[in-house]
C-alpha cells in the first residue's frame, strides 16, 4: 500500500474518532461560540473593587513596559517562573485579581486567570475586552 493511501486511511479513522469525540465526549467544545466563562468580568463589574483589586497584565513584557493599568503587575506564560514571585509580593490572600490582555480576541487573560486559580489565588478573574476596553473608557 502506498504511503498516500495509508495516510488517507489514517485520516478517515481519525475523522471517525473525532466525530465520536465531538458527539459524546463530556468535555467536548461547543462549535457555535466559546463558552461564557463565569470568571469573566466587565469593567463595570470591577468598579466597586477600585482600590482593592490587583490588576495583572498578561500581555508581552514590551507592551506592558509601553503602557499598562496603574499598579498592574506583569505576568505572562513566557516569564512565569520569574514573574510569579513578583506577583506574590503584591498579592494579599483573599484579594480580587483581574487579569487582562490586549483585546476581546485575546484569550491569554483567561488562561493566566485559570493558572492563578490553580496556583491557589481563589478570586482570579479576567477582563472582558482587555486593555482595549480599559483604554476606550479612558480611565487613568
Amino acid at each position, binding site marked *: 500500500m502506498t504511503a498516500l493511501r495509508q495516510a488517507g486511511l489514517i485520516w478517515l479513522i481519525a475523522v471517525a474518532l473525532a466525530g465520536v469525540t465531538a458527539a459524546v465526549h463530556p468535555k467536548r467544545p461547543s462549535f457555535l461560540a466559546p463558552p461564557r466563562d463565569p470568571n469573566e468580568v466587565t469593567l463595570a463589574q470591577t468598579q466597586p473593587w477600585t482600590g482593592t483589586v490587583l490588576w495583572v497584565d498578561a500581555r*508581552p513584557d514590551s507592551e506592558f513596559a509601553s503602557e499598562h493599568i496603574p499598579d498592574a503587575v506583569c505576568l505572562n*506564560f513566557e516569564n512565569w517562573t520569574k514573574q510569579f514571585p513578583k506577583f506574590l509580593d503584591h498579592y494579599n490572600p483573599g484579594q480580587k485579581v483581574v487579569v487582562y490582555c490586549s483585546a476581546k480576541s485575546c484569550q491569554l487573560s483567561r488562561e493566566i486567570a485559570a493558572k492563578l486559580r490553580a496556583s491557589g489565588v481563589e478570586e482570579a478573574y479576567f477582563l472582558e475586552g482587555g486593555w482595549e476596553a480599559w483604554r476606550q473608557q479612558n480611565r487613568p
Partner: protein
Amino acid sequence: MSTLTQPMGGRPILRASRLVLRMGIAVLFLFAAITKLFDPSSFAQQIANYQLTPWSATAGLAVFLPALELCVGICLLLGQWESGALVWVAILLAIFSGALFSAIVRGLSIDCGCFGRSIENTGTLWPLIRNLALLVVTGFLWFSRKRR
C-alpha cells in the same frame, strides 16, 4: 543509493536506532493525544490563543488533532502503515511549527498547548526547536524505511 536509503537488514545498530526513534515519536504522539483527549474543551481554548482560526474551526481542530495524533501514534507503535503515519507526522510537525513561529513573530506570549494541560509554561520557542528536531528525525525514519 545513499547510506541513509540502503536496506538496514545488515546493520543492527542503525536498525536499533531506527526502532528507538520510531518508538520515541510514537510515545510522544500518544502522550500528546491522550492528554488532549482528556479535555478537548480546554485544548480548544489553547488553540484559540494562537488567534489563527475562527472558533468553529478551532473547536473542530480540538477534536480532530488529538484523534489524528492517536492514530499516528498507534501506527508507529505497532509498525503498521508506517509510511502513511510518517507523512502525517511530518505534516503535523510542519503545521505546529508554523503556528509556533507565527506566535513568536506576532509577539504572543502563550503556552504551546502541545500536551494539553499536562505540561504548561513551555512558551513557544523551545517547542518550535523541538518540533524542528523531530522533523529531522522523521526525515531519517522516512528515508531509511523499508519500501513496501
